C-alpha cells in the first residue's frame, strides 16, 4: 500500500466514511474524528451566525447529517462549507430571511466553484425574496465598494 493510499484511508476513517485502518489505535482515531467534527461545525456556526440562529439547538444534529455526506470544500473554508450547508438545508426546509440575506452577501462577493468559493472579479447583482419581511432585496457586489442593500418592497 502506498503512502497515498494509506493517507486516503486514514482521512476517510476520520471523516467517518470508512473503518479505522489496521494498526492504528481505533479509540484515538475516533477521538480525533470527534474533535474534527466539532471543529468543523463550530467554524461554520461562527462564519454563519444566521444559520446558528435559524437552527438553534438543532444546529449540531443538522450539520452532522450534512457533514457525513459532504466532504469539506477544498477552498473557501467555513464560509464555503456553510454555503453548501445552506443549499443542503434549502432542499429540506424554508430558509429564514437572515440566512437568505447572508447567502446574498456571500454570493455577491464570491463565485461558487467545484472546489468551494473564489472571490469575484466582476460586479454581480443578486436578488432574493424575503418571505417574512415581504420584500425583495437586491445585493450589488462591486469592485472596491461595500455591499449595498437598496430595498424595494
Amino acid at each position, binding site marked *: 500500500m502506498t503512502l*497515498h493510499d494509506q493517507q*486516503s484511508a486514514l482521512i476517510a476513517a476520520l471523516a467517518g466514511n470508512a473503518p479505522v485502518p489496521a494498526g492504528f489505535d481505533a479509540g*484515538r*482515531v475516533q477521538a480525533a474524528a470527534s474533535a474534527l467534527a466539532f471543529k468543523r461545525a463550530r467554524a461554520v456556526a461562527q462564519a454563519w451566525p444566521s444559520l446558528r440562529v435559524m437552527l438553534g439547538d438543532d444546529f449540531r444534529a443538522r450539520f452532522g447529517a450534512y457533514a457525513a455526506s459532504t466532504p*469539506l*470544500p477544498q477552498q473557501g473554508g467555513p464560509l464555503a462549507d456553510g454555503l453548501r450547508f445552506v443549499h443542503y438545508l434549502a432542499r429540506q426546509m424554508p430558509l429564514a430571511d437572515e440566512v437568505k440575506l447572508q447567502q446574498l452577501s456571500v454570493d455577491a462577493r464570491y463565485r461558487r466553484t467545484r472546489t468551494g468559493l473564489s472571490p469575484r472579479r466582476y460586479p454581480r447583482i443578486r436578488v432574493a425574496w424575503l418571505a417574512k419581511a415581504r420584500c425583495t432585496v437586491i445585493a450589488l457586489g462591486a469592485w472596491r465598494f461595500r455591499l449595498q442593500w437598496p430595498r424595494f418592497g
Partner: protein
Amino acid sequence: MKRMERPQAQLGLGGGWRPELALMLDRRADLGFIELLAEDFWSARELPAAVEALRDRGVTVVAHAVSLSLGGADLPERDRLQAFARLARRLQAPLVSEHLAFVRAGGIESGHLLPLPRTHEALGIVVRNVRAAQAMLPVPLALENIATLFEWPGAEMTEADFIAEVLEQTDALLLLDLANLYANSRNHGVDPADFLTRIPLERIAYVHVAGGVAGTDGLYHDTHAHALPAQVLRLLRDLCERTRPPGVLIERDDRFPPDEALNAELDAVVSILGGCSAECSEQAQVEA
C-alpha cells in the same frame, strides 16, 4: 553536513493576529511580530487596516500556512505555493512557516493537521515536498512540529529525530511549538527534555505557545481556546536554559478572554525571555 550561516532574524514578542485581537495587539507597545494566517489573506485585495497600522510602526509580519500539506504523498499544489510566495513578498516577511503534516489525500480535505508516519519512506517524501516549496518561496521556510491525538503504527524513529532529519536535509528552519510538544508529552509520553536535546536548537526561527484543555476522552486537546498552561511556560523556561529563541508567539484562536488575561500571558513570556541569558544563545551556537 550542511551548516547554516545566516543568523536568525530577531523577532521578539509575538501574537497570532486575529480580528478579535486587533485592538489588544495594537495596544501592546512591546509587540515585535505577528503571524497572519496565510490562507485568509493570500487572495484578499487588501490587508486589514489594523495589520497595516502594525506594519507602519515596524512590527514584523510572518505568513503562516496550514494548507500546503507538505507531508502529503502528492507534491504541494503550485497555486497554493504561488499565492503563499506572493503574500510573503507583499508582507515583506523575513520568513514564512508551515507544518510538518498532511491535510488532504485523494482529493479529500481533512480540515486538520494530521501526523505523518515516521518512516524513511515518508521522510523522503517530506524532504521532496519541502524542497519543492522552498524553490518557489522568496524567503526561508520554517517547519512546525504538530500536536496529534493518534500516531501511525510502525514508527522507525522518534518525532524529534524525524524533524531533525527533515531540517538537516532541506536546510529549513524550525518553528518550535512548545504547546504541541506538551500535548504530545501528555498524549504519547514524549519526553520533552529528550525532544529538546535531539532537535537542532540553532535552527529555531521562533516558538509557539498556546493553551489547551483536558477532554472528557482523557486526552489533552491543543485548542488555542484555553489559558496557557503553566507546564508550557515551564517548557519555555527549559528551552531558555539551552538557547535564547529569536521570537516567541502566543496563539489564541477562539473563546477570546478579556485583554487582561492575554496580557498577563504575554507578560509571562516577556519575563521568561528577559531571564534568558545571551550567553546561552552563544553557547548553543558554539555547540552547533
